[in-house]
């Protein structure tokens, strides 16, 4: 099973991605009948999930940003793999039956899905009971009166979210982007 390029996406758009460490992304996980297979097998005994493509496939099954973020902190190889924009896109768009192509183009132009998730989507989603949530939310978007803040006393269970949150985050991301652009220009 080869790594599919992008689910339901077109190749032209996919080409806009940055693929960290993607030189051999399309090779099969293991080529058939090579001399060094045995050597590879014995390496597996020492460490598992060393294979970059297998790791990518495994991480494709992650459905929350937090787990993916922690995966990025494991080692250099894991970081390269976990920083693949396609994985963050899967998480950000898991509520869409089909990720809209325009969304991908816009998000990639404005900084990518990983940034969208970590700086805008996550503050909307994180557990409410954490007392440290307020300052972080403020710093994300100081002018907003914390409108999207979940109601106090909400159960600490996983925040439910959907397309609205993604759209809101996208607005925030684009506002940030243009804000930055104009401040750069004024310098």
């Amino acid at each position, binding site marked *: 099973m080869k790594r599919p390029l992008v689910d339901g996406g077109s190749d032209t758009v996919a080409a806009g991605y940055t693929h960290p460490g993607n030189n051999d992304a399309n090779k099969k996980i293991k080529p058939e009948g090579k001399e060094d297979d045995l050597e590879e097998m014995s390496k597996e005994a020492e460490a598992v999930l060393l294979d970059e493509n297998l790791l990518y496939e495994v991480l494709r099954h992650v459905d929350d*940003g937090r787990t993916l973020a922690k995966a990025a902190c494991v080692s250099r190889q894991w970081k390269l793999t976990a920083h693949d924009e396609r994985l963050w896109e899967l998480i950000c768009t898991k509520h869409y039956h089909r990720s809209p192509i325009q969304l991908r183009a816009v998000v990639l132009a404005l900084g990518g899905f990983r940034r969208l998730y970590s700086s805008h989507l996550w503050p909307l989603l994180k557990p409410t009971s954490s007392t440290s949530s307020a300052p972080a939310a403020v710093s994300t978007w100081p002018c907003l009166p914390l409108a999207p803040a979940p109601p106090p006393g909400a159960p600490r269970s996983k925040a439910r979210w959907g397309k609205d949150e993604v759209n809101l985050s996208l607005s925030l991301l684009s506002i940030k982007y243009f804000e930055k652009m104009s401040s750069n220009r004024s310098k």
Partner: protein
Amino acid sequence: MAPKNKNPNGENVVPEVQQKKTQALILKSSDGEEFSISKSAAGLSVAIKNMMEDDCAGGVIPLPLVDGGTLARVITYLNKHAEDGASDEDKRKFDEEFLSGMEVDVLCDVALAGNYLDIRGLFHDVCQRIVNGMKNKSVEWVRKTFRIESDFTAEEEEQIKKEYAWAWEGVDSDAD
């Protein structure tokens, strides 16, 4: 599906292997173990199916990337999923039990085999299982479980943890 009436290679099959169905073939693992499997079960692996169609096998298909222990597990899975009477519910239950007993390195071996043999359902389930195990676990836990040495420098480690500081908010620290 496998071509049903290709040369019946019953004579070539290792004699001590029990043959339940006439349509059987032998899978040979990297360490030389041989397993008999019905063609219908083997055909659930796209890779084996292709090899059968190419008829490169002559009854014995060598799988140099899959060791005997892993192959035995994979064959158990294939047999269950090729069982005539098994309902989807049966299979789901079987999958659940089948995977729940596996350690993480066994899971990874099965994932590799499932990928190599192109058994989509198995591969997907195993990946999901691995990921579920990582949820709410610390980075240290992941390193230990997957036996990965961090090759970050101290600065890099600090940098990346800072970048993902948000991911730790409210995480229950886990001993193991």
